[in-house]
């Protein structure tokens, strides 16, 4: 993996972590409800796990596909999906619907998985996933080894991304819970979903252009 790609992965992770809708706000709410910092801290790994699962599915799927299909085809198809998905996110006025504050940690992880998935969190990594060197073909062991490489690449991407997301979300959650307070939401919560949608379109365009 190139340094640039690694930096991009970390940056995207931080961007996802920053978004209140991706979970740190839920962690803070759970803590405030019970007046318990421990509950804030407990909630964060569950949220990160759900996010990782959502991103991981895409990362592994793309990596595996690249090991059997021409990388250019993957990039073009992926880029097109990304642009379309981003435009839909940008133009649609629908928002994620869910009811329920009293969740177990498992349910919280499930919530995070759904939230990340409908926002296309994994898709946003496509430029990074599609830009790596193509898995080796014509190898004596053929697909088996190639898919093994692809799998570990997918896991690596997911891991780095989620770690960055977790670190940023965790830092914000603790800072808001302990120091800043939620009044900051009124001033600082810009519509990241729209920024996000633009980012998706941009990521798709980059993928298409570099394919």
């Amino acid at each position, binding site marked *: 993996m190139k340094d640039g790609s690694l930096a991009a992965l970390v940056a995207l992770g931080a961007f996802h972590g920053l978004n*209140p*809708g991706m979970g740190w*706000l*839920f962690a*803070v*709410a759970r803590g*405030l*409800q019970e*007046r318990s910092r421990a509950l804030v801290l407990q909630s964060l790994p569950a949220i990160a796990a759900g996010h990782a699962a959502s991103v991981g599915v895409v990362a592994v799927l793309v990596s595996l596909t690249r090991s059997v299909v021409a990388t250019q085809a993957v990039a073009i198809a992926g880029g097109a999906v990304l642009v379309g998905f981003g435009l839909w996110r940008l133009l649609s*006025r*629908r*928002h*994620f*619907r*869910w*009811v*329920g*504050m*009293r*969740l177990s940690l498992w349910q919280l992880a499930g*919530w995070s998985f759904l939230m990340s998935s409908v926002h296309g969190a994994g898709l946003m990594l496509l430029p990074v996933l599609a830009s790596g060197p193509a898995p080796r073909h014509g190898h004596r062991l053929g697909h088996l080894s190639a898919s093994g490489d692809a799998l570990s690449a997918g896991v690596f991407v997911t891991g780095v991304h989620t770690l960055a997301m977790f670190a940023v979300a965790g830092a914000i959650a603790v800072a808001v819970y302990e120091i800043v307070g*939620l*009044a900051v*939401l*009124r*001033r600082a*919560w*810009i*519509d990241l*979903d*729209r920024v996000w949608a633009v980012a998706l379109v941009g990521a798709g365009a980059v993928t298409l252009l570099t394919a």
Partner: protein
Amino acid sequence: MALWKPDPTFYASPRDAAEAPPEKLAYVAAFDRAAETPDAIAVLDVDPGSASYGDVVGWTELPNLGDELHHFGWNACSSALCPYAPHPHVERRYLIVPGLRSSRIYVFDTKDDPTAPALVKTVEADELAKRSGYSRPHTVHCGPEGLYVTALGGADGEEGPGGIALLDHTSFDVLGRWEVDRGPQYLAYDAWWHIAHDVLVSSEWGTPSMIEDGVVGELLLGRRYGHALHFWDLRKRRHVQTVDLGDEHQMALELRPAHDPTKQYGFAGVVVSVEDLSASVWLWHRDRHRDRDGGGGWAATKVITIPAEPADASALPPVIAPFGAVPPLVTDIDLSVDDRWLYVSCWGTGELKRYDVSDPFAPVEAGSVRIGGIVARTPHPAAPGVPLAGGPQMVEVSRDGRRVYVTNSLYGAWDDQFYPDGVGAWMAKLDSGPDGFAFDERFFPHGDAFRGRRPHQTRLQGGDASSDSYCYP
């Protein structure tokens, strides 16, 4: 277009909301009992610094006759900040206004000219019926997954069961009936929730035939009007528990849960006891004993009783003349955003009471004003020579808790029974603080100000004490 920052009228917590700036406009539903002219949304100037303070400065009429506007609500509120489905970049700009008699639901846009709400959508009665199975829409609350609209009647001429219809947040289309398992609830009226506990509470009045031509004496004395509270799993949409207040307590109407999302209690007003004509306010709360027995864990305790006032039968309308007393008729209550003050309307005796409910189990009366009333006809201090019919009815409290607005009409057919010589039309404002609770003598729109209509619910620009729910303490 959505906003880049959260709508400035959304507050994460009730503590923050209590710091909100004072409202400048109030929206009041006004209806023509005779159904000869259209009902209207009246816009009142409530900015004390304005030259037209206390005047009706806007008036939007409906395109139909006989809707009987009653309660209404905003398209979006502070619950948009809730963490599980946040969407705080929507705007609080549309008023969702049901016609209780026509079963139409109107949507008004208040953004372009706040003093001239513009009608942008009408949901016809047959669409509400077809999609949700309900009629007679009443209370509107903005929830995280849509707009919850309670409805008193069933569809296609069916009396019931009443329930809750869910409306889409953005298109305002009727999505369907909210309940998955409605349990035993048949009569419907109000509903609200403990949003951070996934609990919904609902109350009971009566079916269309029980209310639309006035209160039916036989049904009342037969204890057939609603007298129970219902508790629901808000997430699973399932009925969990019925708490019966006792069938002598007829008509359990307005529900005011604590705004503090860590708390699980609230107040419900009961109109009348058929045993002694008193009215009461009940506190619902978690009951640890019941919880252990697996009973669902909710209980209700009567915390306020307001007795009837003896009166000469000749001074009473026929509906209550045989009893020789005026029932207080608690028809609305409202809880301040800081959960400290509870306001109780006694529409029969013409009194608005204020209670300190810092300890919700032990309310302490902390102020009372008299205005109107079946017998008393107390005038407003701004017009001491004008006896007033009707009494304090719909009561609304500003977010900072300092101003209380009250209107005088209950419900067309019932106004006519209890005030047969005419209920009139008036609205009053009270200033409420730690050291006092008194009329604002500069604010008294009445009579022709409402152009022959009767004023009902008030909604304050930016939100009020009964419009928003909060997910953070």
